[in-house]
């Protein structure tokens, strides 16, 4: 059972407000790049290097904005990276307190099963491809649902409105086409 939207919305709004009050707006998708960078730098230490002014990278994306991503790759114990790990722990604890997710649902969600049956490989393939497109798009856009849509629109950022317009313009028709059964 989920929280009634009035309580849920209030709580979620408070979290976004507290983040801005105490530190900075919430964002998640950058940390996929940081984790990629950490793994890449472990394979090849030439990727991220320290300079007199800070950090830089042989990868143009990690080196952009004065090496801000390169710096996070070199120092994983930073606010934004720990934030995402804490999110995962928070979700796990919250879901465990309610006896977790049923076994069948863990493999294939009900709405998928109602439309496409219980074939796990098909579902996992779409989840993988979906993840690829979502993160590629989020990095191209410079943020995701939390960074652009929620944090952006709450600050009246034009980028937030532009992002939300693009996201929903694609998401509604896709879901209407793919999920005709409600599940």
């Amino acid at each position, binding site marked *: 059972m*989920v929280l*009634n*939207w009035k309580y849920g*919305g209030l709580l*979620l*709004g*408070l*979290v976004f407000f507290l983040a*801005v*009050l*105490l*530190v*900075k*707006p919430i964002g998640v998708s950058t940390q996929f*790049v940081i984790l*990629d960078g950490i793994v890449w730098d472990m394979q090849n230490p030439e990727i991220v290097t320290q300079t007199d002014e800070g950090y830089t990278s042989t*990868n*143009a994306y990690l080196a952009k904005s004065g090496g801000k991503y390169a710096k996070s790759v070199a120092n994983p114990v930073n*606010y934004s990276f720990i934030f*995402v790990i*804490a*999110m*995962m*722990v*928070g*979700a*796990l604890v*919250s879901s465990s307190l309610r006896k*977790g997710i049923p076994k069948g*649902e863990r493999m294939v969600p009900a709405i*998928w099963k109602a439309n496409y049956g219980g074939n*796990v490989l098909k*579902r996992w393939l*779409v*989840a993988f*491809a*979906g*993840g*690829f*497109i*979502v*993160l*590629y*798009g989020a990095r191209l856009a*410079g943020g995701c*649902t*939390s960074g*652009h849509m929620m944090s952006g629109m*709450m*600050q*009246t*950022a*034009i980028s937030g409105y532009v992002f939300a317009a*693009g*996201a929903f313009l694609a*998401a509604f028709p*896709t*879901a209407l086409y793919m*999920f005709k059964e409600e*599940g």
Partner: protein
Amino acid sequence: MLHIVLAIVIGAGFGAVLDRIGATNPNWIGRMLNLTNLHLMKTILLAIGVASVLMFGGQMLGLVDVGHMSVKTAYVGVFIGGLMLGLGWAASGFCPGTGVCAAASGRIDALFFVAGGLLGAAAYMLSYPFWQGLGVLSGKAWTLGAIPGTDYPAAIPTLQGDLAGLAIGGAFIVIAFILPRRLAGRKAPAGHPAE
């Protein structure tokens, strides 16, 4: 050190709330996006409204540091990337934040989403110079109105940004209340939360 403690506290709170509102559950995302159950949409709209009103209201009262705002740049790639994210979000039922939370709470399909996401982010890291060359990555960090105490350029310079923020926050809250539970379909699955 204080920042790390805050990251743990706020991050854990965010993850727990995402779980409790159903955002980490692909069924709720799917039903929101196929318009058969807008409960989650009402939650999200209310949250944006509440956060906006508290932040701009707090700024006007001098209780919230304007310097903590961080407005992202608007450029053509924001729209293209938004389209891509929307497509993958609808197909998979996950976005970056809810995907990692769902994976942590034991959803196996979310693990595949996260793996795909790491590969997608890596692909973007490698193709970044291409998009830069196209010129779709430059723009400005506009806000709707001019927000006192910030340097963000205003889309409507004559508009007072903090008042506009309050008004828009209020509008989000109103829309959350008047938005119907469903716009399509007939069955009403899981539409009656107990709490």
